[in-house]
Structure formats: structure tokens, C-alpha cells
């Protein structure tokens, strides 16, 4: 009996905390489907419900804000298609109350918010840029990491310890510390405002090197001895023996690298300026400044930028969580 009660309490606690964790996402999605006036009124918090006044005149219905109703006449602002006060009509216009009508739609999902956000900002370009940068970085990371990890894990050479500690010590240095000097360096290289600036400096990932090294070290020595007797070259061993046995670790490293590139913000914000080069996160941050009052469009844009990672996460959540747990505990 006592066990049952404590179980209920555990589930209750977990559910309350779970709500705290997930509500921002639910609210983001539901807000992204509302009209702006509906959001501002704040009476349908999670289920988009639309309620607005229309002004019917000469057979044309126009969406309006009802400022005041004084008996037979009403004071209104006429809205344009973006739910902003239309410049084509005078503000605080007085019209007969009989021409004003309240409309309620529930639930109403305004998927067109996404289209409107897309119309304002070239998110497709940002999306393509992000994919391009993420994938090229991934290829670069694999190229440098697999070779370096192989040498660290399976070869003996002079200065190995020194090089190993050099790599290790660089891993602990936070990005903001070399941000300014990197900016000056990329300026000298003529790389500012190019894809090079976004990709090449991130083609070395020390964490991935350690991840691979750990795995390569764990492979049994007999495999290598046998291959060596068969006359397999150093590179042949890597290509034919190690890599086929490394699929899970390659998947893990890909996930870390892709999530990292997808979400990286400060570096592309500083290193690029041209709108054509903007990655999704930077584009989103500019949209945040430009459209700060258009909450629903901002939410639509945020939803759109989170979606690819969330989909990836839901399909591979077990592996992703296990990877993070393992990587965190490794040292």
C-alpha cells in the first residue's frame, strides 16, 4: 500500500516537472497557429480560437479592432491582411454600430503564419545554408578525427603524449575566448563573410577525436595482428577493419556534429554579414529583431527552425540520449 502511494507521488512529481519542460514547446506551436490579435487578447492560451470584429460595408468585410462602442456609432481601427492597423484608413474611425459584427471561429489553425514568415524572410536560403555548412563540417570532422584518432589509439611515436595533451588542453578552452582573435585571423585570410569561415575552423573537433580514439583502442589486438600477417597496410587496416567495426560510433559522432553545427550561433553571427550567407540561427535572430511585435510569426519561425532537430531526435532519441550519457561519463 505504502509502495503504491509513493509510486503515485513519483509519477505526479515527474509529470509536473515534465509539464514545465514541455509547455514552452506546446505553447510555441499553438501560438504559431494563432492570429496576432488573438494572441494579444490572450483568452485562448493553448487552443487557437479566433474571435474578431468585422466591419461590413458595401458588401466588403474588413477585419477591425473595436476601440469603443458608443450606442449607435462605434470607433474602430481597420486592419490589413497582416493584422496591423491599415494605413489606408483613418485611425479611430467612427462607423455605425450596425455595420460591426463579432465573428468567432474555434478551433482555427492559421497555418498561413508559416507562409507569411517565409514571405518576410528567406528561410529556405537559411535552411539550405545550414544544411550545406553542417554536412561539409561533418565530412571535415570525420576526415581529421578518424586519422588522428587512429594514430593516437594504435601507433607509437615520439611526442605522442605531448600532442595528446595539446589536443586535450585546447578542448577545455571556451569559444568566446578566441572569438575576437579568430575574427581578426579570418579577416587576414580574407575569409570573413564566406562559407570557409563557417566550415573550415570547425573541421577539427577534439571531442570527436577522443570519442573515436576511445573506440579504436577498445578493438582487440588480434584483429590487427592477423591483418598484419596477411600483409595489410596501415591504411588498409583503418579502411577494411576499423571503419566497418565503427558504425555505431560514427553515428554517435555524426549526431553530435550535426546538432552542434545546426545550433551554432555566436560564430556565424560574428563571422558573416551578407544575408545570402546567413544560417538558420542567425536568420532567426535577425527576424527576432525585425518582427519583435509579430509574436505569432516569430513562433512560426522558431517552430520551423526547431523542427528538423526535433524530428531527428524523436526518431533516434534512444541512441541520442545514450550517446550523450556515454560521452559525458567517459572521463
Amino acid at each position, binding site marked *: 500500500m505504502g509502495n503504491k502511494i509513493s509510486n503515485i507521488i513519483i509519477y505526479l512529481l515527474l509529470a509536473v516537472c515534465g509539464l514545465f519542460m514541455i509547455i514552452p514547446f506546446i505553447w510555441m506551436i499553438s501560438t504559431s497557429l494563432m492570429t496576432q490579435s488573438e494572441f494579444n487578447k490572450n483568452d485562448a492560451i493553448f487552443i487557437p480560437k479566433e474571435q474578431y470584429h468585422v466591419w461590413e460595408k458595401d458588401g466588403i468585410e474588413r477585419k477591425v479592432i473595436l476601440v469603443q462602442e458608443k450606442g449607435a456609432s462605434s470607433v474602430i481601427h481597420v486592419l490589413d491582411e497582416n493584422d496591423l492597423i491599415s494605413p489606408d484608413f483613418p485611425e479611430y474611425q467612427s462607423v455605425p454600430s450596425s455595420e460591426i459584427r463579432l465573428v468567432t471561429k474555434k478551433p482555427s489553425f492559421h497555418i498561413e503564419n508559416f507562409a507569411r514568415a517565409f514571405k518576410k524572410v528567406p528561410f529556405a536560403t537559411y535552411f539550405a545554408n545550414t544544411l550545406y555548412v553542417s554536412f561539409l563540417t561533418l565530412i571535415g570532422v570525420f576526415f581529421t578525427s578518424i586519422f588522428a584518432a587512429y594514430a593516437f589509439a594504435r601507433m607509437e611515436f615520439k611526442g605522442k603524449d605531448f600532442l595528446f595533451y595539446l589536443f586535450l588542453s585546447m578542448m577545455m578552452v571556451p569559444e568566446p575566448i578566441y*572569438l575576437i582573435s579568430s575574427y581578426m585571423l579570418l579577416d587576414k585570410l580574407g575569409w570573413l563573410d564566406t562559407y570557409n569561415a563557417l566550415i573550415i575552423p570547425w573541421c577539427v573537433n577534439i571531442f570527436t577525436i577522443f570519442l573515436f580514439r576511445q573506440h579504436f583502442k577498445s578493438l582487440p589486438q588480434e584483429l590487427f595482428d592477423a591483418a598484419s600477417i596477411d600483409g595489410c597496410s596501415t591504411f588498409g587496416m583503418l579502411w577494411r577493419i576499423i571503419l566497418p567495426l565503427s558504425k555505431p560510433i560514427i553515428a554517435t559522432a555524426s549526431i553530435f556534429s550535426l546538432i552542434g553545427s545546426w545550433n551554432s550561433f555566436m560564430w556565424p553571427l560574428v563571422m558573416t554579414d551578407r544575408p545570402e550567407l546567413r544560417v538558420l540561427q542567425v536568420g532567426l535572430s535577425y527576424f527576432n529583431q525585425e518582427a519583435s511585435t509579430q509574436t505569432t510569426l516569430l513562433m512560426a519561425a522558431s517552430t520551423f527552425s526547431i523542427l528538423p532537430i526535433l524530428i531527428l531526435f524523436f526518431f533516434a532519441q534512444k541512441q541520442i540520449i545514450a550517446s550523450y550519457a556515454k560521452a559525458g561519463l567517459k*572521463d
Partner: protein
Amino acid sequence: MKTKKKITPYMYILPALFLLVLFRLIPILMSFGISFFDFKVTGLGEFIGLVNYRTMFGDAEFWQSMLNTFWLVLFVVPASIVLPLIFAVLLNQITWLKGFFRTIYFMPFVTSLVAVSIVWKIIFSEQAGLANTFLQWVGIEPQLWLAEPKGIFTLLFGAMGITLPAWMGGPSLALFSIIIMTIWKGLGYNTIIYLAGLQNISKVYYEAAEIDGAGKTRQFFGITLPLVSPTTFYVLLMTTIVSFQAFAQVYLMTDKGGPLGTTKLIVYYIYETGFDDLNMGYASAVALVLFVIVLGLTIFQRRMEKHVNY
């Protein structure tokens, strides 16, 4: 053949080493150098020795952003240790829906900081934000959140009719809003790390404790807490280092570290002095202070780790 063998390992390391030296080691060393220079709008000015560092010590904005950062770390780090440990212990007790809860807790961690900063900015908006709606439900008057420069202790005690002296005000409510969001973002990761840590504790200890008649609370403080301490150390260090680097939240949720500079964190200050004021020498000097702090914490952790590992 012999010489070829000798250089092979270096050839394998070369691509990684080349990029590491060019894009990590050299910029880090450059940071030191740059911090001794004056900057004009046109670029690098003249060598001015320690002037940047001297300016920094007299710079009220620098000290304010330091103080803000310390407040953030002071709130975020304990919460990011205690809450995930509780979550992990609770999750460890159940089997049904375990994966579901784990997924939900972890979701904020994988999503982009930019997008969730925008979402939380709107949650904390005065007009129709979710935070004020919630306060309304529980019968508390709406707050200004990200626009509130008053300290949280001032507000709390003010609500009880006690006026606190200014220096006891604590972090502004605006900064506290950022603190809440930062905790939310990182909880899932630490929970997962703790879950993995808990799985490494042998069941034998708990069985023995059960036989000795130790209750759940006793077991938690007597077995779980000490045996999970290596994980706690890892979580402590990582969370502290990451918290010191908070930037995107400030950039996206506030108006340039406002209101009244109460949300200006150290990395934002580096960004602002470096890229808005184009005083890169001064920004590098501030960045080096951050470097020294992070380095000190890392060394401290490595030293302490030897004493707590069981």
C-alpha cells in the same frame, strides 16, 4: 620503409593538428597579444601595455557584468545539480513511461538556444505572456519580467512590506528570467548524466542497507549521494563552465543587456566591446579574465576529483 613507418603517424595527425594550431592555438595566443593593443575603427592601433587591464579594473560596466554572471552561475549551478539528481533518482524508481519522461526532459537540450530564447522571451512578455497568465491563475499580480531592473529580493520582500537596502536586492527579475530559462535548457542533459551515474552503483549496497533496515532517505544520503559524487563533480564543472559562457539568451531576450545593464553577462560584454564598440583589444583583455576563471575552475576540479573518487 623504415623512415616511411616513422613519419606515418604524423601524417595521420597532420590534418587535425594543422587546423588545431591554426584555428585554436594561434587565436588563443593572439588573444594575449591583442589585449596589449589599442584599437581604432580602422583596426589594430598601438601597443599600450597593460592599459586595457587597468581600464578594466576601473570599468563599472565590466564589474556589473561580472556580478551579473556570478549571480547567474550562483543560481543556475545548484539548481542544475539538485533538480537533475532528484529527477534521475525518481526516474530510476519507475519502468512504465520512463523513456517518455526522459525524452521530454531531454528535448530542450537538443533544440537551438536561439529558437528557445525567442520562445521564452515571449513567455515572459508583459502583455500576453504565459508567465503572467500563470501568475494570474494563482492570483499574483503580473510582473514586468525581462523589463524589470529591480532585484528579486527587493520584489519579494517588497511584497511583504519590507524595504531592503539596495545592495541586498539580488539579481534583477530580468536576469532571474534568464536564469529560469537557462536552468530549463540544461536540466535534461544533467538528468541523463545522473541516470547513467546511478546505473553504475551496484544494487548490492541497497540490498545490504535494506537488510540493515535503512529507509529510503537514509539510503539516498548514505549510498546514492556519496557514490554518485564523481558524476556530481563532472556535472558541477560542466554546468559552471557553460553558465559562464551564456550569450545567446542575453542577445535574443533582452535589449542589449538591459534593463539598466542588469542582464549584461560577461560574454555579451566581450561581444559588445569587441564588435559594437570595435575595441577588440579591450574585449580580448576581458576574454582573458574569463579564460583565467575557466582555467582555474578546471584545475580546481581536477585536483578535487582525486579526493572524491571512490
